């Protein structure tokens, strides 16, 4: 039984894992788990993953969640090129420094526009404008810190070569872009970084992975996004209530 990856391509960390695995030619079985179509909290998935989260990796009997842990695991197990997760003490520390900050300041923040514009309306919830504006402020601050502290004069977020940090960052930033918030406008340094990372990864791979997320807004406008079944409403409502 080979490597299985449970992924939902609407999810930023899932895309990061998928892109990484494919870019590095890591063979895996894709188990598409479409969270809001009710596939997520199924009994079978629950047996795999008591945290009920995506992405999830299943390697034989070994089950792992959390995208950064999965990425590090894959890079170690499949001995990917050093730049992804550098062996040098300080270079690696920079990747971990970014991942720590990312968990606090990027995760939970850049996913909000998709929730306010597409997911919440699907279940008849309106997120107050005050929260939308507050989220925008948090995103602006995070982008400023990303540019000044992490990117600085460097080509990439944790050093002079692409690493896991860039992958995690880019897919998060793409989430609001997919629903029409162009974060890269007026931020040439960030836009240049994005181009560099995307050039490295390759447009075919990116288009393939980002298909669902890039189409979501159009689908929502045309009312083609399926209504999530009632069993997923509680976890959706919980997520919405956590928007500060």
């Amino acid at each position, binding site marked *: 039984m080979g490597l299985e990856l449970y992924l939902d391509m609407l999810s930023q960390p899932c895309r990061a894992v998928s892109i990484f695995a494919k870019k590095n030619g890591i063979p895996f079985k894709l188990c598409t788990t479409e969270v809001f179509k009710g596939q997520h909290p199924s009994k079978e998935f629950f047996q795999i993953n*008591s*945290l009920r989260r995506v992405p999830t990796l299943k390697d034989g009997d*070994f089950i*792992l*969640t*959390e*995208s*950064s*842990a999965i990425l*590090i*695991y894959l890079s*170690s*197990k499949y001995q990917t090129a050093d730049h992804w997760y550098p062996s040098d*003490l*300080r270079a*690696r*520390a*920079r990747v*971990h*420094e970014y*991942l*720590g*900050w990312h*968990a*606090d300041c990027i*995760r*939970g923040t850049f996913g909000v526009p998709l929730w306010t514009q597409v997911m919440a309306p699907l279940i008849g919830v309106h997120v107050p404008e005050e929260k939308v504006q*507050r989220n925008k402020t*948090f995103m602006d601050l995070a982008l400023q*810190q990303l540019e*000044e*502290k992490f990117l600085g004069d460097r080509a990439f977020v944790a050093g002079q070569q692409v690493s896991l940090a860039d992958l995690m960052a880019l897919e998060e930033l793409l989430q609001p872009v997919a629903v029409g918030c162009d974060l890269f406008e007026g931020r040439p340094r960030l836009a240049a970084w994005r181009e560099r990372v995307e050039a490295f990864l390759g447009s075919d791979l990116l288009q393939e992975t980002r298909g669902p997320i890039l189409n979501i807004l159009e689908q929502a406008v045309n009312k083609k996004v399926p209504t999530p079944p009632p069993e997923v409403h509680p976890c959706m409502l919980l997520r919405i*209530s956590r928007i*500060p």
Partner: protein
Amino acid sequence: MKQEVPERGVLGLGWRRLKGTGSGPRAQAAYRPRFRAWRLWLVGVPNVCLKMVLELYLDLLSASCRAVYIFARKNSIPFDFQFVDLLKGHHHSKEYIEINPMKKLPSLKDGKFILSESVAILFYLCRKYSTPSHWYPPDLHTRARVDEFMAWQHTAIQLPMSKILWVKLKTGGSDGTRVQPSLPSPPHPGQMLIPMITGEEVPAEKTEQTLLEVKNNMQLFEEKFLQDKMFITGDHISLADLVALVEMMQPMGSKYNVFLNSSRIAEWRMRVELAIGSGLFWEAHDRLMKLAEWDCSTLDPMVKEKICKLLQKFR
């Protein structure tokens, strides 16, 4: 003209005049340090090393700082403790902003290398000082479990635990009895940080939500990470246990004890404390435990303003 003898050099070991160099204005160039190797460890090594010693910028009120402090002390890693007083707003000082422009703690300074984020610092110290492998086991699966916990804990443990400290409702005595938000007795006015600092009441619903989140996540921690093991990775303490415990201790600053719900977690807590050493553990938590006595009127007004803005996230 009397020849000047150079001062004792950097190593304080005296000078020796080279043969055939004579005297006069150029005589200084003819001197070189007298090298007494056996004195090096007494005088020279500490003097030189002092400039290169590791600096850790900490306030033990912060759980992330406690993790780094305990780890460094437990592993006898020599460092300079640079106290950055959060309650006095020293993390906003010009001096500290040069170390960490994001004004957060902890920070590490190793020569010219500056590093933030406690998990990154812990991994760095582990590797640089070759600490025993149980802290961050090299086995692929075990290490992945530590990485998984370190990623999960940011939102699942750290955030809600620190929310309690800000938001918490204290009823009952200070004997660590379980907080029952629905009990009629009012919270001690000195114990609620948000109203104390911002002048605003926290809606009871938000407090209940936070407490429920903590309860649920402690359950997840037990089912997913601890299970029936002694520690998260098995028989030995690792960075995951250290980080988990210091985070779960945070509500104790408001006299709220999260360890009462499960005997398995309570036993694990004791094991981790003993593995660290009770002396070191409680020394690290002393400032947190005394928070209840803090006179918040001494809070810097600028810091108060910044806290008010930050607390918007907790609404």
